[in-house]
């Protein structure tokens, strides 16, 4: 079936969005023939495409929260007709020594507020965030409605995470920082000297990939091997329709904390 969308141009261009659902269109011959005819005339040309494919297999060793396991699959013979080039994800492990690592605990994060307004309405959570919420179903209930995140603490934490990912060593090590780099100070962060273990992944990263890494992080945190874990994913901005309908976020940070708690930090969308 071909779904013709309302002509809603992007905010910054006259681009039009056209959506074809491949699963449905194959059952409607007329629409299918029309779409094949339209796309095979060379109007769009031959774009480069990158692709990731994961088979869904019934979970044999499933836990309470996941109903199926996605396994990275080799395309093999199924893809020979396209002569696809196999590319490897870049993964790298680094160690940063002697960092001033903030202590993140619930008492510091939360503050009492006078007017509980319930859950704030925000953009649709991304697929990996939805999977995280499935993974930790009770975490929202544990936060009472009278409590809200301490803005000073959160601002400092966001700044610290940003400095960490950008390798602003002075800031992360709590040394003197140029005001051009950051106007925030470490005052609201209680920190301790530790080392940092960093895993860096580059390539075509899918929400399933991120969800799996989150599960592994949670295992490490629950096993008390690390006090917490921080995952930051960033990518180029997709068009607004993808962001809204498919929950694809281009940038977010998830902090996995002990006791089934987590923080999600992402830019406010207008």
């Amino acid at each position, binding site marked *: 079936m071909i779904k013709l969308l309302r002509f809603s141009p992007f905010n910054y261009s006259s681009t039009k969005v056209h959506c074809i659902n491949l699963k449905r269109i194959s059952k409607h011959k007329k629409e299918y023939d029309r779409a094949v005819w339209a796309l095979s005339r060379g109007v769009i040309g031959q774009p480069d495409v990158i692709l990731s494919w994961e088979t869904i297999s019934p979970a044999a060793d499933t836990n309470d929260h996941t109903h199926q396991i996605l396994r990275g699959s080799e395309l093999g013979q199924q893809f020979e007709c396209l002569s696809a080039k196999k590319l490897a994800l870049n993964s790298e492990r680094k160690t940063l020594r002697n960092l001033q690592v903030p202590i993140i605990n619930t008492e510091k994060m939360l503050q009492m507020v006078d007017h509980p307004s319930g859950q704030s309405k925000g953009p649709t959570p991304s697929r990996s965030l939805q999977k995280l919420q499935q993974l930790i179903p009770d975490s929202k209930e544990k936060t009472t409605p009278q409590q809200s995140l301490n803005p000073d603490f959160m601002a400092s934490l966001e700044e610290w995470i940003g400095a960490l990912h950008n390798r602003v060593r002075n800031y992360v090590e709590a040394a003197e920082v140029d005001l051009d780099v950051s106007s925030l100070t470490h005052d609201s962060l209680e920190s301790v000297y530790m080392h940092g273990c960093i895993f860096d992944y580059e390539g075509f990263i899918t929400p399933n*990939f991120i969800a799996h890494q989150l599960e592994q992080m949670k295992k490490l945190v629950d096993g008390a091997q690390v006090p917490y874990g921080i995952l930051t994913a960033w990518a180029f901005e997709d068009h607004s329709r993808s962001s809204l309908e498919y929950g694809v976020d281009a940038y977010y940070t998830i902090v996995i904390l002990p006791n089934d708690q987590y923080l999600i930090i992402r830019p406010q969308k207008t």
Partner: protein
Amino acid sequence: MEVFFPVANAGLGYKFAEVMEPLTKHFYAFKCEPSVLLSNEFITQLVETGELYALAPYRKLDVDTTLSLYPNGDLVLGLQKDTYVALGLNSPDSGAMKSKSTLPVKMREFGNCTSIRYPRSDLFIQSPFFEEIYSQNTNS
């Protein structure tokens, strides 16, 4: 994507590397006409049997044609206006567009009328319903 763990011992990294081993280590790159993505083999063997993500990289959203494919089977094309028209998916023969294509024809009938009220009132005056009311009023 980056994952950070604070650790007391710097040598623990190799131990965590086993835990943080990703499930998928590869992705694929190819060059093809978009119609290949509509082929029966592609749909039955890849789209319907697993979760498939695809996109056209290195494309500028505001000037280039973009393409992305999601696990629910949606192939989303971001097209420039000219390309969109040239594709032919927007022709008046398309069932979904029929109601829209009739609107400009009606507008042309009223020539240079700029007001929306004018053609409507004109239509009303010319209608048999108006003539009936008018004749009733004049007779009384």
